[in-house]
C-alpha cells in the first residue's frame, strides 16, 4: 500500500493544482470487533474493517469534500479533483469567502494509554466470559431474556493539511454491558441494564471489562428487572428529582452538549438536527444553570470516550469552559465557526470514519462535581423521586424542552429512599431545569459515561462522546404523566 505521507502529498498537490486554496486529507483505518450473546447463545460475532480517505478542499472560497475506499495514486488525484469541483459548485451559493481560524502547525502523534490491547484477547475467552454473565443473569427466576455484549475498536488516523500539519493518531476504545428482561404478559415488561442501557464505553483497553465488575452486578440487575413488574407506577406531580450518573450523562448530552454546538447555533443543522435556543446574543449573558453548574468540554480527560489528541482539523485537544457558575461562557467550535465569536477553534470537529465531512461534535462534556455525599443529597428531599438508567428520550428541535424516561426509580419520602417505581418519566424546560439544580455529588461519585452512538448531520453521522458527572438533584421538576 502507498505510504500515507506520500499519499497525502499527491492528494494535496492535486487539489492545489486544481485551484484549492486550502486542503486536508484524513486516511482512516477502523477495526471493530462486536460480540453479543443472548439467552445462552452467541447472537452475533463480527469483525468489521473500514479503510479509506477523505479530502476537504476550499476553492473559490467554499468547501468541497470527496472520499473513497481505494487508496492509490490515480484515485487520490481523482478524488482531490472531485473535492475541488464540488467546492467550486458550492461557491455558486456563498455569501462570503470562508475564513478559517488559525491553527498551530503540528507534526505529532498520539496514542491513548491502554493497559491490555483488547485485540490480543482470544475471541473464545471473550465469548466464554459473556456466556458466563448471561448464565448469571438467567439464574434469577422470572428472567425471560438475558443479553451481554462487548465492543472493541481501534482507529488509526493520519491527518495532513496544506498548512503543513501531519498528525497520526491511534485510539483504542472498549465497551460492554449486560441486560435482563422479565415479562409478565405481552403488555408488561421489566428491563434493567448495567451499567447503562448502552453499557459503558471508554477509551481504554480490555482492563475496562474487569473494572466494570459485571459478575457482582448480574444478580442485582436481574432481581430489579423482575421487581419492576410489581412496582408501583411513577407518581405524577411537581417533585424533587435526583438523577444517577448515566441518566444525568444523557441529560448533559442532550440539553447542554447539543445546544452548545456552534454550527447548530448558527443554523447549519436547521433542516435536520435542529437549532439551539442558546444563540450568540446569550453568550456571557444567559444564566444557563444554577451557580453550582460548571461545565467544560475536555477531550483530554483520560479514558473519556470523547478523548483524542487532535480533532479532525488538526486542532490540539484542550479543556475549555462552556458554563461557569451557571453562566453561558462558551461553545463547541470549529475553525470555520470560531472566528465568528472571535476565538480560536477549541477542537470539536470530528467525522464519522473516512467518508464523512468533519462537523462539530461533543468531546467529553463534563459537569464538574460538587461536594455532596449521595446520602446527604437524598436526606434533604421531602418528596421526590430518584431515577436510574436511560430508557427513552425526546428533545425538541431547538433544545428548549425534553421528555425523559428511565428504567427504574424509587420514591424519596422525608429524606429516605422508599418504594420502587416503574416507568419513571420527567420533563422540563432546559434553562429552568439546570437552574433548579441545587446539589451535585462529590468527586468520589464522578465518572465519564460513554455514548457510542450520537447521531447528527446529513448524511447521518455517528460520533462517540463522553459525559462526566456525579449524581445531582433538581427541584420542582414535573415527573410522571
Amino acid at each position, binding site marked *: 500500500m502507498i505510504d500515507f505521507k506520500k499519499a497525502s502529498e499527491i492528494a494535496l498537490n492535486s487539489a492545489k493544482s486544481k485551484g484549492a486554496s486550502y486542503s486536508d486529507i484524513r486516511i482512516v483505518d477502523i477495526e471493530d470487533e462486536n460480540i453479543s450473546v443472548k439467552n445462552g*447463545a452467541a447472537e*452475533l460475532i463480527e*469483525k468489521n474493517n473500514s479503510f479509506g480517505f477523505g479530502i476537504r478542499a476550499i476553492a473559490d472560497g467554499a468547501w468541497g469534500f470527496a472520499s473513497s475506499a481505494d487508496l492509490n495514486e490515480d484515485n487520490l488525484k481523482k478524488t482531490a479533483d472531485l473535492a475541488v469541483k464540488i467546492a467550486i*459548485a458550492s461557491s455558486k*451559493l456563498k455569501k462570503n469567502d470562508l475564513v478559517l481560524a488559525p491553527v498551530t502547525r503540528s507534526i505529532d502523534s498520539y496514542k491513548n494509554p491502554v493497559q491490555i490491547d483488547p485485540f490480543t484477547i482470544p475471541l473464545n475467552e471473550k*465469548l466464554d466470559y459473556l456466556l458466563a454473565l448471561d448464565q448469571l443473569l438467567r439464574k434469577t427466576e422470572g428472567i425471560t431474556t438475558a443479553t451481554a455484549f462487548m465492543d472493541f475498536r481501534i482507529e488509526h488516523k493520519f491527518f495532513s493539511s496544506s498548512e503543513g500539519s501531519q498528525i497520526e493518531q491511534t485510539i483504542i476504545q472498549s465497551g460492554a454491558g449486560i441486560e435482563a428482561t422479565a415479562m409478565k404478559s405481552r*403488555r408488561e415488561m421489566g428491563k434493567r441494564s448495567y451499567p447503562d442501557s448502552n453499557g459503558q464505553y471508554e477509551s481504554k483497553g480490555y482492563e475496562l471489562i474487569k473494572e466494570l465488575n459485571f459478575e457482582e452486578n448480574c444478580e442485582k440487575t436481574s432481581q430489579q428487572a423482575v421487581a419492576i413488574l410489581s412496582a408501583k407506577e411513577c407518581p405524577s406531580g411537581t417533585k424533587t428529582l435526583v438523577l444517577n450518573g448515566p441518566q444525568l450523562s444523557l441529560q448533559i448530552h442532550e440539553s447542554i452538549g447539543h445546544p452548545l454546538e456552534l454550527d447548530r447555533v448558527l443554523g447549519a443543522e436547521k433542516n*435536520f438536527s435542529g437549532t439551539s435556543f442558546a444563540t450568540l446574543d446569550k453568550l456571557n449573558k444567559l444564566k444557563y444553570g444554577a451557580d453550582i453548574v460548571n461545565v467544560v468540554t475536555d477531550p483530554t480527560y483520560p479514558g473519556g470516550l470523547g478523548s483524542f489528541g487532535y480533532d479532525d482539523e488538526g486542532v490540539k485537544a484542550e479543556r475549555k469552559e462552556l458554563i461557569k457558575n451557571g453562566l453561558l461562557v462558551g461553545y463547541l467550535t470549529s475553525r470555520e465557526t470560531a472566528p465568528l465569536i472571535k476565538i480560536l477553534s477549541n477542537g470539536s470537529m470530528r467525522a464519522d470514519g473516512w467518508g464523512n465531512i468533519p462537523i462539530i461534535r461533543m468531546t467529553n462534556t463534563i459537569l464538574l462535581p460538587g461536594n455532596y455525599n449521595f446520602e446527604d443529597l437524598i436526606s434533604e428531599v421531602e418528596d421526590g423521586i430518584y431515577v436510574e438508567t436511560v430508557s427513552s428520550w425526546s428533545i425538541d428541535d431547538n433544545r428548549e424542552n425534553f*421528555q425523559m424516561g428511565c428504567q427504574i426509580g424509587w420514591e424519596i419520602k422525608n429524606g429516605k429512599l422508599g418504594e420502587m417505581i416503574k*416507568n419513571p418519566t420527567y420533563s422540563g424546560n432546559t434553562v429552568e431545569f439546570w437552574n433548579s439544580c441545587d446539589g451535585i455529588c462529590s468527586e468520589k461519585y464522578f465518572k465519564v459515561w460513554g455514548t457510542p452512538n450520537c447521531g447528527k448531520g446529513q448524511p447521518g453521522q455517528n460520533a462517540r462522546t463522553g459525559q462526566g458527572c456525579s449524581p445531582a438533584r433538581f427541584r420542582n421538576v414535573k415527573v410522571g404523566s
Partner: protein
Amino acid sequence: MLSKEKALEILEKGLKYSDADQTELLLLEEDFYLTRFAENIIHQNMGRADHTVMARAVLGKKLGVAVTNKIDDEGIKKVVKDAIEIAKNQKDDPDFVSLPKSGPAPEVQGFDKDTHNYSPDDRARGVKISVDNSQKNNLISAGAFQTETDVTSVANSLGIRQYFQETKANFSLTISRDEQSGWAQAFSRKVKNIDADKLSQIAVQKALSSAKPVELPPGEYTVILEEAAVASFLLFLAFLGFGGKTFSEGRSFMKIGEKITGDNITIIEDPYDPVMNGMPYDYEGVTKKKVVLIENGIGKGVVYNSYYANKNKTESTGHALQPNNTFGPYPKNMLISPGNSTLEEMIASTEKGILITHFWYINYMNPMKTQVTGTTRDGTFLIEKGKIKSAVKNMRIGQSILEAFSNVELMTKGRLLCPQYGVLMYVPAMKINKFNFIGG
C-alpha cells in the same frame, strides 16, 4: 459502479476461497452525493465512493460474520478467512438450520441513468431555486439534496445469485424566519421528478403562514397529520412490532387475527409496487414477498428472514437486514391504503383541530402499548370552523400509535412517498380524533 458480471465474479471468487459448510457473501457499493445548505448558502457538499463485502460463514450450527471494504483478492480472502475463524470460535446456535435458498428475483427497474450522472453543479442549481424562492419572501433556506447509486449483490454456496442497481434522489428543505418555519420533502428513483420549485413553494407557504404562533394547552385534539407525520408513526410501528424477531419474542403489539386498529387501516409491505421499485430480494438474497401486515384493522402478518422463519416454522418473506445486526427482519417498503378525501376536505370538515406537517424525535414511552412522544415541527396550525385560523407553537405529543390508527376518521386519496431512516413509505394524510398532547 460494478456491473452484474463483475460483482458476481467477485462474489464467486470469494465463495471459492471458503471451506466452510455454507458461505454467504453480500457486496454493497455506493456512489453517494449530498449537497447541504443553510442560511441560504451551500455549507457542506460531499461525495463518497465505497464498497463493502460482508461474509457469513457456517460451520455446522456455528456462524461468523466479517466485514471489509477492501474488495481486492487479498481483502476478499481475508474477510472469508475471518468469518470462518469467528465461526470456529462460536458456540452452536440450536435455532440455526441453514442459509436460505432462493431463485432469481423478478426484474425491478430501480436505476435511472440521469440520476446516476447528476453533478455537483446540477444539485447546486436545485438548491439555488429553493434559495431564490426563500429570498424573494425574505426567508432563509436550509436543506439537503442527495443523489446516489447503490449496488447490492448477494451470492451463497446454496446457489443464490442476486444483483440490483438502484438510484435515489431525495430533497428535503426547511424554510424559515425567526419562529416561522415550513418543511417539505420529495423522493424519487429519478431526479427529474424532484421539483425544487414546487417543493420550496410548499415550504415557503408554510413558513409565511406560521407567523405569530399561538400557544395551545396540552390535551386531546382532533389532528390532521400530513403524510410525513403519518410515515413517522408507521416507521415506529414497524420498529415496535412488524418484524419476526420482536413478534416471536413476545415484544410486539401484533396479534394475528385480532383487531388492532380501525377498520379503515390496511398496511402492506410491497417492494414491487410501481411507486417503490424497491430491491426485490433481501440482504441474504431471498426474493421478497408482498406481506399484508394489517388488513382492515386486523393483524395479518409480520416479516421474516430465514433464521426467524425457521425458528417459527414458516417461510422467509425476504426481509433480512445485513448480517452484522441483531435487530432481526424488517419491512422497508410499506404502504398504507388510501382514503377518499383530500387535505382541503379534511380541514373543511374539522370544527377544531391541529394540522401537523411532521414530527421530530419520536421515541417510545411505553413500547408494549406503542405509546410515543415527540414534538411537532415546521408547520403546525390551528383549524377552527373548517379553516386554518393561525399558526401554533410546537407541541409535544404523548400518544399510542395503535390508538391513533383506531381513531382515523378520514384519509386522503392521494399519497406521498416518504423516506425515513432507510425505509420508504407511501402513505396518505390522516384526520385523527382524540389525539393526545402532553406539553408545549
